[in-house]
């Protein structure tokens, strides 16, 4: 019982959440007019036929004349079997569009996440250990700068400096270069740099503040009295409790950046990833693709939250699971 049972229930809940999201999106889609039916009606009107009949004919052809619950079941099955429909603005299946976009998104988001998760807490705790020293101030300065400078603004400026003025990086993102190549590293450096500076700021601050709270906790004092080195105290005793409250916000925070800033950065640097796919779909009014990418992002977020909760339970054994 206890933790295992909680984890099982938590996973089951994640599945339920995805189902609820799928249901909501289905509701949205059903409420909106179907473009194919619209087209048929338009065509009929142009040919001087009866639009109402054309509508019925088209609905029959698209099987929209079946009872709602049947259509809903079909849709749910479709979502879970990855039949997400046809993208009208790209003329390819939505899943194919998302897979090809994911290819580019992964290339910068993996190094970005790793760097953020590594650098953020470490620098934060280090700052806390050296509170009010010049290193702390420098780290705080970097954190504030990174957090306060709007990603897209920073991106444009860097692109102007390094791309147009210095010509160190290509202005136009090259999709053709191999993933593990010098060219790819060069063209992804600036976007990753922008994203990392944007995301570590908050994490550094939260971890610094949390770690500072433990700075005069009894166990730290005891350890200090025993003559344990400061480095050891922080590495072994402070980081873990610091990560507890941090873990509750970090995943959500990173996901918010993933869905927001990465979209901006993709637009600024011309990376044809997921964010830009969604943006283009919204701009071009491609319903299937909008829904597909929305589902994708929410699935990622659900799974991210699931992981976050699991990490939380592992990290803080004080929480009891009996009544959760």
């Amino acid at each position, binding site marked *: 019982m206890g933790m295992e049972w909680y984890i099982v229930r938590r996973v089951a809940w994640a599945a339920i959440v995805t189902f609820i999201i799928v249901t909501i999106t289905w509701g949205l889609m059903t409420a909106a007019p179907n473009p194919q039916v619209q087209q048929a009606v338009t065509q009929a009107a142009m040919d001087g036929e009866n639009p109402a009949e054309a509508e019925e004919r088209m609905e029959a052809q698209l099987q929209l004349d079946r009872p709602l619950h049947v259509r809903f079941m079909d849709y749910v099955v479709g979502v879970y079997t990855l039949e997400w429909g046809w993208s009208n603005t790209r003329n390819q299946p939505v899943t194919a569009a998302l897979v090809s976009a994911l290819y580019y998104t992964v290339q910068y988001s993996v190094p970005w996440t790793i760097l953020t998760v590594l650098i953020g807490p470490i620098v934060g705790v280090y700052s806390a250990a050296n509170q009010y020293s010049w290193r702390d101030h420098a780290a705080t300065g970097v954190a504030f700068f990174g957090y*306060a*400078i709007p990603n897209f603004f920073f991106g444009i400026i860097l692109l102007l400096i390094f791309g147009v003025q210095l010509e160190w990086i290509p202005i136009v993102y090259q999709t053709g270069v191999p993933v593990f190549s010098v060219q790819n590293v060069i063209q992804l450096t600036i976007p990753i740099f922008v994203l990392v500076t944007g995301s570590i700021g908050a994490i550094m601050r939260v971890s610094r503040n949390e770690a500072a709270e433990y700075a005069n906790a009894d166990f730290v004092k005891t350890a200090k009295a025993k003559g344990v080195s400061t480095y050891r105290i922080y590495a072994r005793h402070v980081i873990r409790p610091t990560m507890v409250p941090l873990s509750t916000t970090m995943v959500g925070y990173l996901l918010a950046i993933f869905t*927001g800033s990465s979209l901006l950065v993709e637009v600024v640097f011309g990376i044809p990833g997921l964010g830009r796919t969604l943006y283009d779909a919204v701009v071009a009014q491609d319903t299937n693709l909008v829904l597909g*990418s929305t589902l994708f*992002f*929410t699935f990622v*977020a659900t799974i991210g939250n699931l992981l976050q909760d699991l990490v939380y339970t592992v990290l*803080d054994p004080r929480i009891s699971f009996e009544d959760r």
Partner: protein
Amino acid sequence: MATDRQSFDEIDWGQIDEESEREISPNFIIVAIGTALMGAVWAFDYFFVTGTWDAAIGMDFGNQYTPTFEVIGWGYDVTQLDWLFAFSLVLFGAYMILPLYQNPRMTKYYWRDMKRNRPAMASLGWLLFIFVIGVIGPAIIQAPTVDLMTKYQPPMFLEINNVYPINCVGEVAGGDCHGSLEHPLGTTGDGKDIFRIIVYGMQISMKIGFIATLFVVTIGSIVGTVAAYAGGLVDEVLMRWVDIQQSFPTFILYLLILYIYGASLFLFIVLFSLFSWEGTARYVRSNALAKTEEEYIKAVQLSGASTYRVIRSHIMPNSASSIVTDITLLIPSFILFEAQFAFLGLGDSTIPSWGVLIAQGRSDLAFAPWITLIPGLFLFFTILAFNFLGDALLDALNPEADAEAEQ
């Protein structure tokens, strides 16, 4: 030294708690009076100024140009957002500023503490500047107008190759157009004065910050503490809702809504407020959850205190530092969100916000960088100031860390 100092927890909230037990606190009176005043002006606007054409729709949606204060010769039309802004200002005054006055000793203490923190003081000054100019400026400075013949004027002390502006307002020397006092920050590609846009943008940023924070903090902290304290089914339901809300990324959700309804600043603020409190709630809850495990809460409960009292006087104050941390991250993030949507061309284009200006100047960056740089820097410094201030507040409100620092 640290020991004889009265901390935030002991003084401030204890006193407010006492006040809440009285029938009406001065804070509440201020809110009531402010609300009543606004109600009167609103009624005046609704019944006397807004034409029946609007009344037919039921509300003044800003479609008709009907200055609220035309009677006193002030051609300023008050919109829904203005009402909300005014209301949040009243609340802010009653529950943030007034307590400072009510507790002069504590205020003096914090002030002394803050004064030593130079970045925080500078930030406070900057935000006050933005706030005051933002509230007053648009009422006295004319809205920026298009003047195609004087586009791309450089800011004072700068110059631009004379091929870009059509007519140069300042002096022309060596083929370069120099900036002039008439347009201290230069003009855009439409010939709009950037200084005026910046002033108007201040108000928009302040509106976004205040109104949205009001919603978010209220909903978030209530849900968070209640969930943590009540536990059981209540916690389950609330947190599961938070889960769903969190799984539905706000940015995406807004894009989806935008896809269906189109953009407006009002919609933006309401939507972001209603769907952004989950972070606050989670934060407050996890903090409170850890605290409920602590002995003294158990002791208070054993002594028979009511649930409301426990939340009000123990959990809320104890989570205050988390909430402040959260606000300082939230306000700038809302301002940033607005700028991002404006940059993407998906925002409310009818308002002269900084984000709109950044987006406009982006294609002129190579030869007229100030169009993007000036609002970008204002945005940057404002976000920065919120962060510095938040950090200083956190230090001040967190006696433990403070004590440690002085050891």
